[in-house]
């Protein structure tokens, strides 16, 4: 792995670290020297904050350490000791996973990057700040150029580094404005904490750091339980697949298509999350269907068919027990998901329609014990034909657009796993086909009637 890193990237890291150390030496020689205690306290906390990063969905990981850099700028501003912010920022390179993995370039680079960014930010702050104690209004204003200076230097050094590392210009600047807005509240907390530090001493620092650490710790527990929630759902899917090997991957694929459709329809992340779980669990009721019916190759008798259909009621019963999924529990029945063209569907959740379309699409494009997979275009035609009748037209359009935009191909010849290559070309039987089953049955009845 280490051999793959270009030599110029290594050179860049070493040069940057040398520059940071040289600057520190020059600043120390010129004086004034910063007080030791705040350097140690803020530096240790800066390193701690870097190591406490929890991956937030918004990517706001490094903000807590940046905040402490801002504190350092204010704390050392009245002495004019620029060495203080530089040293505090340089502590940010001590990221334990990097050090343990002996990736010595990354700590070098991060240390230099945080140190120089904080230093430039401090120079800008000191140049603009009037002498003496700062009023809150001044701090409010001064935090703006200080944040910009930090962000510009930090991102510029990072962009060059990524370019040297991967030989491609990264798109880091695209989200620059959003990142600045996200940083500003932390910058404000940092500079006000600095002012309180000057008044009250170091004792105020834990007052800010403790609630932040508690919040992060709690968020980490949240992520851990989220993992166990995923595990519970995987357990369910594992049980389903143990019963009916032909449906391996079905739940995941339906969830994937449902997510495509939801994204296409502009759903919020939390609603997408709920849709994904509902789609993963839509077949849970099949657990109560005896195995020999699920895997029957021939046509089901009317009695067997009723028994298989019962699984939808069980699915709804189970999904209703989970508050988070209760509003979209009808996703599990084909009746509730039936699109009624005359009815006014405003206020009705669209999720059942999404799961119905995703389910039907996957059922058509994968091989089952009773039928080989259909080609993608046939499945699209089938969806289009029933759009506005059986399926919600907006949902059908969204799925077709989403799949075509991604240039994906599903169905015959493009399946990940084919469990049953000698399946008949067409025919009825088994469960899991949802509405299409009825469609095919009607067709065969018509044929018999003729």
């Amino acid at each position, binding site marked *: 792995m280490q051999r793959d890193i270009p030599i110029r990237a290594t050179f860049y890291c070493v040069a940057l670290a040398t520059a940071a150390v040289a600057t520190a030496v020059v600043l120390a020689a010129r004086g004034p020297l910063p007080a030791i205690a705040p350097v140690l306290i803020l530096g240790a906390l800066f390193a701690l904050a870097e190591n406490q990063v929890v991956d937030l969905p918004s990517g706001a990981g490094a903000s807590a350490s940046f905040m402490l850099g801002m504190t350092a700028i204010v704390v050392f501003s009245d002495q004019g000791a620029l060495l203080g912010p530089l040293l505090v920022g340089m502590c940010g390179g001590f990221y334990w996973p990097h050090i343990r993995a002996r990736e010595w370039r990354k700590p070098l680079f991060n240390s230099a990057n945080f140190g120089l960014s904080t230093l430039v930010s401090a120079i800008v702050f000191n140049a603009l700040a009037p002498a003496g*104690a*700062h*009023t*809150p*209004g001044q701090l409010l204003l001064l935090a703006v150029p200080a944040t910009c200076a930090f962000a510009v230097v930090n991102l510029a050094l990072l962009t060059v580094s990524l370019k040297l590392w991967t030989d491609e210009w990264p798109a880091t600047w695209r989200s620059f404005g959003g990142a600045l807005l996200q940083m500003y*509240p932390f910058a*404000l*907390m940092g500079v*006000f904490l600095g*002012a*309180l530090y*000057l*008044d*009250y*001493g170091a*004792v*105020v620092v*834990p*007052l*800010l750091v*403790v*609630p*932040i650490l*508690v*919040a*992060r*710790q*709690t*968020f980490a*527990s*949240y992520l851990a*339980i*989220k*993992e*166990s*929630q*995923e*595990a*519970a*759902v*995987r*357990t*369910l899917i*594992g*049980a389903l697949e*143990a*019963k009916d090997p032909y449906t391996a991957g079905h739940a995941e694929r339906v969830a994937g298509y449902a997510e495509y459709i939801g994204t296409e329809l502009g759903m919020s992340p939390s609603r997408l999350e709920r849709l994904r779980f509902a789609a993963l669990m839509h077949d849970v009721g099949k*657990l*109560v269907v*005896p*195995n*020999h019916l699920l895997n029957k190759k021939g046509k089901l008798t009317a009695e067997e068919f009723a028994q298989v259909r019962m699984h939808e009621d*069980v699915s709804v*019963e*189970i*999904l209703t*027990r*989970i*508050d*988070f999924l209760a509003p979209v529990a009808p996703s599990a029945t084909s009746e509730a998901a039936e699109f009624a063209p005359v009815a006014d569907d405003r206020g009705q959740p669209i999720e059942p329609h999404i799961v119905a379309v995703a389910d039907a699409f996957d059922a058509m494009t994968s091989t089952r014990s009773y039928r080989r997979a259909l080609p993608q275009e046939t499945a699209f035609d089938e969806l289009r034909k029933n759009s506005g009748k059986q399926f919600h037209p907006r949902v059908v359009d969204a799925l077709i657009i989403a799949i075509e935009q991604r240039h994906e191909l599903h169905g015959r010849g493009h399946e990940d796993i084919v469990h049953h290559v000698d399946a008949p070309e067409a025919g009825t039987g088994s469960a899991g086909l949802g509405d299409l089953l009825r469609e095919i049955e009607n067709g065969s009845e018509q044929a018999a009637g003729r």
Partner: protein
Amino acid sequence: MTMSRRLLLVVVLGGIAAAVTGFVDPGGSSTALAVLGAAIVAGELLVLRPAERAPLPLSYAVILVLVRAASPAEFLVTVVAAEAVAYLLRVDDSAWDRIWVTAIRLGAAIAALGAFHAVANAMHGADSRWIVLTALLAAGVAEIVVDDLLHVVRARRLYLSMHGRSADLALVTGGMLMSVGYRGIGGLEGMGLWGPLLFSIPLLAAWYSFERLASIRRTYEQTISALSVVPELAGLVRQGHASRVAELSVDLGRELRLAPPDLEYLRAAALLHHLGHLCLDDPEVRGRPIEPSEVTDKGAEILRETDYLRPAGDLLASDTASVGNQILRVVSAFDELTAGDPAFNDAAIEALYSGPGYVYDPRVLDALERVAGSRLPAAAH
């Protein structure tokens, strides 16, 4: 009324109150009091809910700002007015709950007021910065202690958990910071209420994290228990079997001093111990009856497929002899015998002790007798 609507209402009413007081009493302290009062009401709506302790409202942090910003008389008037509004907003709760919660909040606020001034007076002459910090710490601790004590009185049960105290820690430190931020910098009045507002961000982040944690925990527990019901819906076991076995297994696990994570796995394994049954072919189809060990092994196989529930699967597998596995065997057999009717408990325990052909761990049976038997009423639940 949804939570966000209530919050909006509080913000609007607080804004109107601040505008009116600013107009009536320009330059006086009543505008700040109106804003802090509204912040207390908002803090009553934003509650930290750790799983292991009674909920903690963010209003306790605002109390620490108010205790420093206002005279004792102003403090009391503001707190009583704010709690009266909060009482009206708790429309979903029963009258008795509303009265109790209001009483607890007022008790905690008065404790904070008393502690703050007692410490401030006792430290008279010391460095003013240290007086403020120490008195605020005392007020924060007093609030929490009185809140805890009143919850003990309300539940009529002397039980205080030391778990979930990170919420207390965050609330007291965050509240102290908000309070120090009020008129804090260099003795300048100008910072006003912007300090507390700005420094409420860490507490709001903590609140958000606790909310997410509580909701995912609820979803997880409901998912597992919904899955546990499937064998019952399929008619394979009696209704309520899984939840009864889970509850009694955890009680026995606690009695036998299993560690909290092991209790969690025991609970999950107990709830899902019949899941494997669903995946086996019908006896008529395969031509031979289903053995209990087949059911547990199939369940274990499924649970072991995920990283997170693998320990629960290990516990369920028939080839293990862990305490948890022994507990599950005993409790499952016990529930088959009693069908959840406590009248049969003693007979069932007797049968398990002397049951022919079955070997159950005597330690677990003793624990079962202590927890579910009637001969030792002290251990009965």
